[in-house]
């Protein structure tokens, strides 16, 4: 008898449920309350960290969520909203693990360490080293995208894949207060929201994080604390044809870009202000400037129970093919199709700790993609597009989208998003995050239940759970 094969999510969920059932039976309720992670609980202690006394630790989590979309989009994508990008489908966003040896910054001794992260799930495509796009942003010519973590499992599944967002070594140089230097592939220090699911208040993400900033870099990054209020980062990044963003290890290595920034923090940690920037040539063959600055301010009030965050980003990419340029009728790559693109926005967050384990929060955002260069839905499609890999068709069909149609809106537009939600931790290692979100755009960006018919608004309700190991 034929049976429908289990999806990757069903396989992992089934395995996890079986393992849990075997191990949890004799446990006491108070142990569940006290343990800080699922692995702690199953092991009955922190013995699952055998090298902890040597500074080597590991961690991980399972993050899964679902989104209901009032537009009932025909293509089942939540427009340009990524991470939780599928409407009415349960997604295992992250089955994530990391191992690390943290480095102690000190003016006295050398210290060595590093970190390696791996993710399996539907979020992988958004944090792979995709900084070399399928086609050159200036000429439209096909590019070699590199093969660090792109396509490790692609073509097998439209949505589930592997990503290796961090793989770096780090050392402390005993100068001054201690200078730590990372070398390898690491998360960006730019911005506020992060890829790692347990570290965001909301399940959904701001446009700024999705489209306005890099996710990772490949190169070198130094960190130095001048005093307890001021610290700075400085580095150089490579492997990218998008200004040092999301670089890999084996292409575009003769293109190097600047990354740097500074952070001020008050004595009692209630206030902080951060400025970071990337800047430099777009790619190895294109010396036009690609740059970004990001400013993030944070403030805590009412005995650190009320948290406010404001962020402003502004990005620039000179002489690139844009949606607005193509809308003039110019051929892709011709001078008429190219513009100096800009994108910028402001997003604000207000979060209140009602209880130790319950927070409520709102996020309000305006983001402008001035030239139709950054925002494109479904973002999974260009992410999977690769003209240089055998197996992909010559016409460039994206494995994640299977030619569901053109990207949208691919025009300059304003995007507004209001999000309200809860962050509830029934246990220290379990987090549940329901949130309502209303998106509005100055272009018809959001697909309706009629294929190819778009409206300028979208209302979604999503909820996810994060189980920390």
């Amino acid at each position, binding site marked *: 008898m034929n049976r429908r094969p289990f999806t990757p999510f069903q396989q992992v969920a089934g395995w996890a449920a079986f393992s849990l059932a075997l191990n949890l039976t004799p446990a006491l309720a108070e142990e569940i309350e006290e343990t800080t992670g699922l692995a702690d609980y199953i092991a009955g202690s922190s013995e699952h960290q055998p*090298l902890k*006394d*040597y*500074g*080597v*630790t590991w*961690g991980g*989590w399972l993050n899964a969520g679902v989104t209901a979309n009032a537009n009932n989009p025909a293509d089942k994508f939540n427009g340009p909203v990524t991470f939780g990008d599928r409407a009415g489908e349960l997604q295992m966003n992250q089955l994530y693990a990391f*191992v*690390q*040896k*943290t*480095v*102690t*910054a000190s003016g006295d001794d050398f*210290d*060595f*360490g*590093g*970190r*390696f992260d791996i993710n399996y799930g539907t979020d992988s495509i958004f944090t792979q080293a995709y900084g070399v796009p399928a086609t050159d942003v200036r000429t439209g010519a096909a590019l070699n995208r590199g*093969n*660090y*973590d792109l396509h*490790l*499992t692609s073509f097998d599944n439209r949505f589930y894949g*592997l990503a*290796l967002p961090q*793989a*770096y*070594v780090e050392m402390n140089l005993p100068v001054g*207060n201690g200078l*730590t230097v990372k070398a*390898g592939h690491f*998360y960006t*220090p730019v*911005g*506020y929201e*992060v890829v*790692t699911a347990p*570290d965001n208040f909301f399940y959904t993400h701001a446009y700024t994080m999705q489209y306005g900033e890099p996710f990772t870099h490949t190169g070198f990054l130094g960190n*130095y*604390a001048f*005093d*307890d209020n001021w*610290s700075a*980062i400085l580095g150089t990044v490579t492997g990218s044809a998008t200004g040092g963003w999301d670089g890999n290890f084996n292409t575009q290595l003769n293109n190097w870009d600047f990354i740097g920034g500074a*952070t001020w*923090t008050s*004595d*009692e*940690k209630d206030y*902080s202000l*951060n400025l970071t920037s990337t800047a430099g040539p777009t790619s190895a063959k294109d010396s036009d400037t690609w740059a970004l600055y990001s400013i*993030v301010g*944070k403030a*805590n009030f009412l*005995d*650190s*129970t009320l948290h406010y965050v404001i962020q402003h980003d502004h990005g620039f990419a000179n002489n690139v093919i844009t949606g607005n340029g193509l809308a003039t009728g110019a051929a892709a790559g011709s001078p008429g199709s190219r513009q100096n693109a800009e994108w910028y926005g402001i997003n604000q967050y207000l979060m209140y700790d009602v209880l130790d384990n319950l927070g409520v929060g709102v996020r309000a955002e305006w983001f402008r993609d001035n030239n139709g260069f950054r925002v494109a839905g479904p973002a999974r499609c260009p992410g999977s597009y690769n003209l240089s890999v055998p197996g992909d068709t010559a016409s460039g069909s994206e494995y994640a989208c299977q030619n569901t149609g053109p990207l949208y809106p691919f025009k300059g537009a304003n995007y507004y998003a209001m999000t309200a939600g809860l962050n509830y931790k029934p246990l220290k290692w379990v987090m549940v995050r329901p949130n309502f979100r209303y998106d509005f755009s100055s272009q018809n960006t959001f697909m309706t239940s009629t294929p190819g018919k778009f409206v300028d608004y979208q209302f979604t309700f999503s909820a996810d759970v994060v189980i920390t190991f």
Partner: protein
Amino acid sequence: MNTNMLRLMIMLALPGAAILSGCTPKKPVSSEGVAIEKTLQQAETDARAGNEKKALEEIDAAEKALIEEDKKKPYVQGIKTESGINPKAAADQDAIKELKRAKRDASGNLAGDAADDIDKALKDVKVKEGN
């Protein structure tokens, strides 16, 4: 062997070797850290005994000592907080947050809640001192 899997194994092996080569036994807790932990242990004992006033003084002293320790031994404080990446900064910020809540609870005659807050702060301080 599948070239993708080979690539994955190499990516795992390189940082793995670097991480393990850097393994050294943990450094001992500093004298400042030991003093802060003792102060917090005493504050928790006093809070559990219902002596909010004394606990409040000790919480205040521990908070000042934490800030003073940061002045003597500054560390990099970024804005972003990926899990585990900067455990010292995360633990220090959490400790100070818990101490603020402990002060609020002790001032509001909620000694039991204050003791719980102090206990959480103490755990955070131990993590901070271990990094």
